[in-house]
């Protein structure tokens, strides 16, 4: 039987991973449809119909076509929410607000610091280039300043939005999983609350199901 939920893009692409993690958390059946970045398939007319910016992922749920991984993730967690899996907290105004705050922090503070490190260390060598060490060093400095704030927050609360796990926490995993496989993972040793939070998230069964499919570096 054809799965009604389709994710377009490779599992390893961090924005695709974000969506897959949410699908695994809510336990919904889905199909991953590969889109070949190397052949420019993401810019094909067929893919542009799904994502007019020619990016990954795109997503289909019945007749609904979506793009932008954080919007897709919200839809998945909203539609397939259960009494056990409530990762947006939209039934509680102040909890939902804190989820939104830390999801925006992920997008606007954490991501810009960590993504260049991953691209330089992993993606650039894959296409035969040389990592830009200056950019890596600058990004690490930015990341440490961001981690100072996270350390303060996570020493007061088990998770970012409070004592409940949410999309705000999970949204950090795609790049963080790759980061933990680089030599810079030891940066986290100076941030014990952050390190404990990362390990807690990585041990979630849904997360394990996804990252067990990643190649080991």
């Amino acid at each position: 039987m054809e799965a009604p939920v389709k994710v377009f893009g490779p599992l390893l692409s961090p924005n695709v991973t974000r969506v897959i993690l949410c699908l695994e958390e809510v336990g919904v059946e889905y199909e991953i449809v590969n889109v070949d970045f190397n052949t420019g398939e993401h810019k094909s007319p067929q893919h542009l119909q799904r994502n007019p910016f020619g990016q990954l992922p795109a997503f289909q749920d019945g007749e609904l076509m979506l793009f932008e991984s954080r919007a897709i993730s919200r839809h998945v967690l909203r539609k397939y929410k259960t009494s056990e899996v409530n990762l947006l907290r939209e039934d509680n105004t102040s909890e939902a607000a804190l989820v939104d705050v830390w999801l925006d922090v992920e997008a606007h503070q954490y991501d810009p610091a960590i993504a260049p490190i991953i691209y330089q260390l992993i993606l650039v060598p894959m296409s035969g280039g040389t990592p830009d060490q200056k950019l890596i060093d600058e990004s690490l400095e930015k990341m440490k300043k961001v981690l100072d704030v996270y350390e303060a927050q996570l020493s007061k609360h088990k998770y970012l939005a409070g004592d409940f796990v949410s999309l705000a926490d999970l949204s950090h995993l795609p790049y963080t999983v790759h980061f933990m496989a680089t030599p810079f993972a030891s940066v986290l040793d100076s941030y014990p609350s952050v390190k404990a939070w990362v390990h807690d998230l990585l041990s979630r069964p849904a997360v394990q199901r996804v990252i067990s499919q990643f190649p080991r570096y």
Partner: protein
Amino acid sequence: MSTNVARVLVCLEEVGAEYEVVNIDFQAKEHKSAEHLARNPFGQIPAFQDGDVVLFESRAISKYIIRKYKSAGEAADLLREGDLREAAMVDVWTEVEAHQYNPALSPVVYECLIYPAMRGVPTNQKVVDESLEKLRKVLDVYEARLSKHTYLAGDSVSFADLNHFPFTFYFMATPHASLFDSYPHVKAWWERLVARPSMKKLGATMAAAAAGIKQA
């Protein structure tokens, strides 16, 4: 006025909430004071307080405001949270503003208006030209979308549309405003937005603040 502060004020105006704006003196580095860091640990603006609730990140603040004032008529529909499909479309185009539109358009605003006024530095034309190229590609997508729908998420205004106001308002004060003339549906959408009472009111405040900065 800070664009991210204006983002929040538009939503407060749309829902008809009473509010107070407490100035943070950027020049005096007040945004990095211990008092402000307690509200926004990244030392940025805005921060927001509603009783015991203290928030930061302008889009998160704005959504809190819209949800809290759910009973206020049309404002109730700005997030469409009663309908899965419509709520998803609001989320998609809110993300598009944050990750596609703003990164292309805001450098033009910074280079043409903000940096010259606040730091006395000349416009970096290379940055402006590269950003305008990116913005044209983004507006191609918007033109296609807005030729099918009156607003970004559907046929009534939503949070996704409102998010575009602050930076676009300032863009229209740069020498590159006429770029929008090549995108008739986008231009018509923009003109519908700025006719809204919330934006007329804030636009007047923002223009006055910008004039004040230029004279300083």
